[in-house]
């Protein structure tokens, strides 16, 4: 701690300013108008933190450090430029894993060279408080890393979105967590490498075990949760280094991820614990399979175009399927044509539509949909009753009326968009087989006022655009 107490005042103030920049960066996101300035403040904060750190330490290896920043920065910039907006959930998961790994490596470096971090006592042993902070930072970082890798593989389609359920998984998970906590406590007395590295290995394992049983539909919660973890990892390292910028950032990111997880859970009417326990969407078949024979109305693109031209107002409900089909640009074209014909067009977004919070909003923004046409669930739900057409594209579970009526449904109680109240529902779906991610059949398909448009989402919208023109 001797180094921390000798830190000059200007350094403490510089880190504090960096922390304030980060707070303002998030504050800027309260409206699209101020968001870009916020982002720039974030960059300034980061520059201050990095410059201050480099200025106050004797640097034995400046060329190597600059090379590392240049290589990493170039990879980051190229990725950021090339990535498709539909792949944003995977990208964020991948970035989370990097934060986790950086925390683990930083922690390991601190363990191997504690003098450099100023966390040793007179005898050269790591201070007990620092040992706990270091252990927690490494453990959270490792969980963030392996959890994010699994989330990435699931979101990227390299791994099935279906939950993988190990027998006795709750016992294994709780046992592993207890072992990690125990090892971190023991680490304060015994700082031999086996304690440190066993705790690290177990943390890598638990991150993996925690995410594999969680199904595709719960990915928005997982991504938010891992976001939160990456923050707590940064905070733990901030405690080790007595660095206010890191602690403020960690607290901000940690709360941000936690709040987003909460919003996502609320939007699915699930408790955080049940999401973490996993297994949702594992069972399907039974009721869905028998329901496939029920009668439904099928329409063509021309029918859909005709119905919408007759309408005064159309509400478009996009979901993950729109992202998969990359249909957002064609959809906006359709919206423009309808608007030209004097029809009111709005977009209704369910909080868990897509694979991460706000996923649909970004895709619509990419396609140049004005954001004042885009509404959140609670702001638009009462409008469906007055709408002539609800146009559902790639969404399923978030429109299922069973969530309101069927107590036996796995999604009962989840807030859903009241699309069935519109005079006509146009529902684009690839085929009648295959339920939504929750593995439940959708009552909506068989209603009298629903017309199923069975096709690839993008192809169908293209045909509708042609028919409208």
């Amino acid at each position: 701690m001797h180094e921390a107490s000798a830190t000059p005042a200007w350094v403490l103030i510089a880190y504090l300013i960096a922390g304030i920049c980060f707070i303002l960066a998030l504050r800027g996101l309260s409206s699209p108008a101020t968001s870009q300035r916020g982002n720039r403040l974030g960059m300034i904060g980061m520059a201050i933190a990095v410059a201050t750190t480099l200025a106050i330490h004797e640097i034995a290896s400046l060329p190597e450090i600059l090379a590392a920043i240049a290589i990493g920065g170039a990879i980051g910039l190229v990725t950021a430029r090339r990535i498709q907006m539909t792949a944003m959930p995977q990208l964020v998961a991948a970035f989370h894993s990097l934060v986790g790994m950086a925390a683990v490596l930083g922690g390991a470096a601190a363990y191997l060279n504690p003098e450099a971090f100023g966390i040793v006592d007179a005898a050269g042993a790591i201070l007990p408080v620092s040992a706990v902070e270091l252990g927690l930072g490494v453990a959270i970082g490792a969980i963030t890393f392996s959890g994010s890798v699994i989330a990435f593989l699931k979101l990227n389609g390299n791994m099935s979105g279906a939950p993988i359920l190990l027998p006795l998984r709750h016992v294994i998970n709780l046992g592993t967590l207890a072992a990690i906590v125990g090892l971190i406590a023991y680490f304060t007395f015994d700082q031999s490498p086996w304690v440190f590295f066993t705790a690290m290995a177990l943390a890598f394992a638990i991150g993996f075990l925690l995410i594999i049983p969680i199904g595709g539909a719960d990915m928005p919660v997982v991504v938010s949760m891992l976001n939160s973890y990456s923050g707590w990892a940064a905070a733990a390292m901030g405690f080790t280094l007595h660095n206010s910028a890191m602690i403020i950032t960690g607290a901000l990111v940690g709360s941000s991820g936690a709040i987003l997880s909460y919003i996502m859970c609320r939007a699915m009417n699930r408790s955080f614990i049940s999401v973490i326990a996993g297994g949702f969407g594992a069972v399907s078949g039974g009721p869905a399979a028998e329901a496939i024979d029920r009668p439904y109305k099928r329409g063509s693109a021309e029918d859909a175009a005709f119905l919408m031209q007759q309408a005064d107002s159309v509400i478009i409900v996009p979901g993950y399927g729109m992202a998969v089909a990359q249909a957002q640009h064609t959809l906006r074209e359709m919206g423009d044509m309808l608007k030209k014909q004097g029809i009111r067009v709005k977009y209704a977004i369910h909080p868990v539509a897509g694979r991460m919070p706000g996923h649909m909003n970004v895709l619509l923004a990419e396609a140049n949909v004005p954001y004042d046409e885009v509404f959140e669930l609670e702001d638009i739900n009462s409008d469906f009753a007055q709408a002539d057409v609800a146009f559902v594209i790639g969404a399923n579970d978030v429109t299922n009326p069973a969530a309101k009526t069927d107590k036996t449904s796995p999604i009962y109680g989840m807030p859903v968009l009241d699309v069935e109240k519109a005079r006509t529902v146009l529902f684009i779906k690839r085929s009648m087989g295959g339920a939504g991610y929750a593995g439940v059949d959708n009552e909506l398909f068989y209603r009298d006022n629903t017309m199923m448009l069975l096709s690839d989402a993008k192809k169908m919208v293209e045909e509708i655009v042609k028919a409208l023109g």
Partner: protein
Amino acid sequence: MDFISILSIFVLACFVGYYVVWSVTPALHTPLMAVTNAISSVIIVGALIAAAAGGSATSKWLGLVAVALASVNIFGGFAVTARMLAMYEKKERSDA
């Protein structure tokens, strides 16, 4: 700084985070995740200390790798956030 001062900063920052994040408009939740991702890479500070210090070669190389990983995140995170936010900006202008 002693542990209690640090803990105070942490607890107060959690409260600040709570209120600031609730004020973020849901339309910007994806950029929020991208930018929080970028700023959580402030752990680069720890990595830099390890990379800069003499004494342990292993520690230095671990630090350097961590610096590179965090840099991917910092540059990539801010750039992708800026790219997304520009999409929202565009519409505002075309509307006016």
